[in-house]
């Protein structure tokens, strides 16, 4: 069984918890449906989001240079990082220069991707994730299981126990209001003492040289405005051309992500406050390579709303950790093979190709088609399990000729009819674990037709 299938099986072993996980995420999907349906031109808006992103990808170099120019003019320091290691080194050097030892960080999937926390902690820098969900999983020493709701896999009792141990809340207390208040007090202390703030970036506007960060908690701003140094880390695909384009994406993002009409805070950082420093790090880490893959490049259009996770019937029943990558779910499954095809070769198969992901995507990424195409690439690279490879070869051989097909069909039906149950339902028959095989008819349709119609 594949890695994903194994982890999913473990997850599902607790069926009540699986149902709870599924229902939580389905509720978010329903909120998204209601929010998107409140906008009559929703489908046109998605098209526009998609078209703007296509346009960006076709002019990414130009827009990055324009963005850099404008940011520099705004008094922002711009850095370029080819990969995760360079990115982490740049962050480190900025912190060193400012002698910053206590860093507050708001949600950033890019820094997760680069394993920035681990790097900084190794160098004796304290990094505090300030988004509540992120803080919870940081205290648990777990990766996020969702890109928008990082702790969606946890029950409030578990968070209560964690906070009791780490933050000294009352034993057994699990009221979300109470726990959130405790985190607020804890994090406000951290904000008060911070030397630097790091954030991710939702949108970077070429025309203005500014970056836009969307949060509900206000944690990015608490850090950014209190720290003497602000660092914004972004993948190079986060660029959008114009100030006006923000109108399109701010309408799409929160409605798709959580069903809110907009995030509580949409912060536009253009210039550092006098006496303070602002840095932006532009990170490639495989993105320019993905840009060269014609069939897969538009995965770079993703605005990280997480809607494809919430709608994915597999994600909802296997949890984010079953995917083994920072960005789980459908979008993760089309990003990962480009990073390491062999390592993540099971992910494009962790899907029924139902297509719901593509239809909720606010920038119309054809996720399910790319899953199908990645499967072809994985077979070409000989990264399929041998049994699958050979059974497909045999199937292809059989189905190419009617005489073979008719004979094999007859043989299979005969075998399934006469063989005892313990043989047909053996260990290898994964179909039979939870399902009966079809009742086998004596006659195929073809045989019936030949006898009765021709």
């Amino acid at each position: 069984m594949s890695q994903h299938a194994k982890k999913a099986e473990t997850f599902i072993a607790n069926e009540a918890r699986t149902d709870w996980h599924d229902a939580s995420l389905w509720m978010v999907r329903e909120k998204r449906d209601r929010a998107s349906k409140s906008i009559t031109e929703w489908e046109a808006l998605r098209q526009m989001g998609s078209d703007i992103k296509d346009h960006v990808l076709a002019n990414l170099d130009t827009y990055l240079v324009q963005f850099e120019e404008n940011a520099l003019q705004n008094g922002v320091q711009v850095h370029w990082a080819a990969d995760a290691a360079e990115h982490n080194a740049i962050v480190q050097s900025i912190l060193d220069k400012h002698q910053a030892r206590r860093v507050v960080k708001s949600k950033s999937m890019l820094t997760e991707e680069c394993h920035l926390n681990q790097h900084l902690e190794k160098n004796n820098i304290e990094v505090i994730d300030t988004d509540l969900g992120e803080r919870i999983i940081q205290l648990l020493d777990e990766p996020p299981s969702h890109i928008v709701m990082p702790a969606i896999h946890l029950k409030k009792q578990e968070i209560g126990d964690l906070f009791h141990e780490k933050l000294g809340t009352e034993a057994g207390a699990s009221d979300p209001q109470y726990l959130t208040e405790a985190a607020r007090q804890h994090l406000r202390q951290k904000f008060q003492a911070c030397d630097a703030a790091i954030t991710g970036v939702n949108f970077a506007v070429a025309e203005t040289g500014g970056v836009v960060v969307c949060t509900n908690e206000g944690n990015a701003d608490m850090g950014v405005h209190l720290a003497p140094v602000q660092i914004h880390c972004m993948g190079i695909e986060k660029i959008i051309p114009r100030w006006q384009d923000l109108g399109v994406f701010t309408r799409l993002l929160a409605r798709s992500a959580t069903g809110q009409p907009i995030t509580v805070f949409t912060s536009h950082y253009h210039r550092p406050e006098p006496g303070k420093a602002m840095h932006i790090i532009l990170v490639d880490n495989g993105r320019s390579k993905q840009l060269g893959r014609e069939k897969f490049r538009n995965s770079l259009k993703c605005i990280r709303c997480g809607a494809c996770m919430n709608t994915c019937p597999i994600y909802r029943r296997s949890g984010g950790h079953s995917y083994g990558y920072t960005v789980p779910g459908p979008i993760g499954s089309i990003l990962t093979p480009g990073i390491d095809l062999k390592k993540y070769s099971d992910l494009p198969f962790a899907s029924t190709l139902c297509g719901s992901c593509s239809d909720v995507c606010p920038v119309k990424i054809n996720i399910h088609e790319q899953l199908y195409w990645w499967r072809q690439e994985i077979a070409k690279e000989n990264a399929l399990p041998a049994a699958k490879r050979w059974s497909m070869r045999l199937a292809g051989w059989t189905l190419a000729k009617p005489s073979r097909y008719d004979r094999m069909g007859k043989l299979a039906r005969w075998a399934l009819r006469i063989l005892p149950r313990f043989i047909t339902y053996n260990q290898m028959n994964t179909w039979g674990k939870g399902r009966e095989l079809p009742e086998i008819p004596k006659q195929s349709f073809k045989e019936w037709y030949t006898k009765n119609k021709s």
Partner: protein
Amino acid sequence: MNARTTILQAIRQNKPEAKERPSFPQEPTGSRTDLLSTFCSQLLTVGAEWVHEEEMGDWSVFLSNYYKNAHRIVTTVPAIQAAGIDMLHETNEAHDLWDIDVAIVEGTLGVAENGAIWLPEDPLPHRVLPFITQHLIIRLHRKNLVANMHQAYENLSYEGLGFGLFVAGPSKTADIEQSLVKGAQGARTALVVLYI
């Protein structure tokens, strides 16, 4: 070769053919609806409250009724200078701000479709003010409403902008079992005072 050159070269090699930049929709949702009532109902959706200034009576009475336990109330709006409200002037010292219970600021633009209000940096004595305060009051002129985010960005200029913010309701989280809790890291409540 430095990273900048490497990245730009790789992009130039790999990028797809040019695609047209799309134009904007002619008449997006809400263009013709009653902006004020949509705006007010969206404020409730995002967890904010609202009141008409002419109906709220005297500011200082209102504040003492509704923010009973507030010790420190500050304003950045010259129009609101009532007993017990400090006018907050420019400060670089954030530690002066930690004990603020209520901050009254002026918004310049409201968006009907989502209840978001634009707060520019200039009138703020410190960028962190709308976040650090326990309770946020935003004063907004009833005429300064637009239908949606397209119109909002059209109406706003980025020229000379250092920092600017759309705020839609109080700070929130649903990170614990999807239960909505107001007052995550930022303001616990948000009240919009509409005036004419």
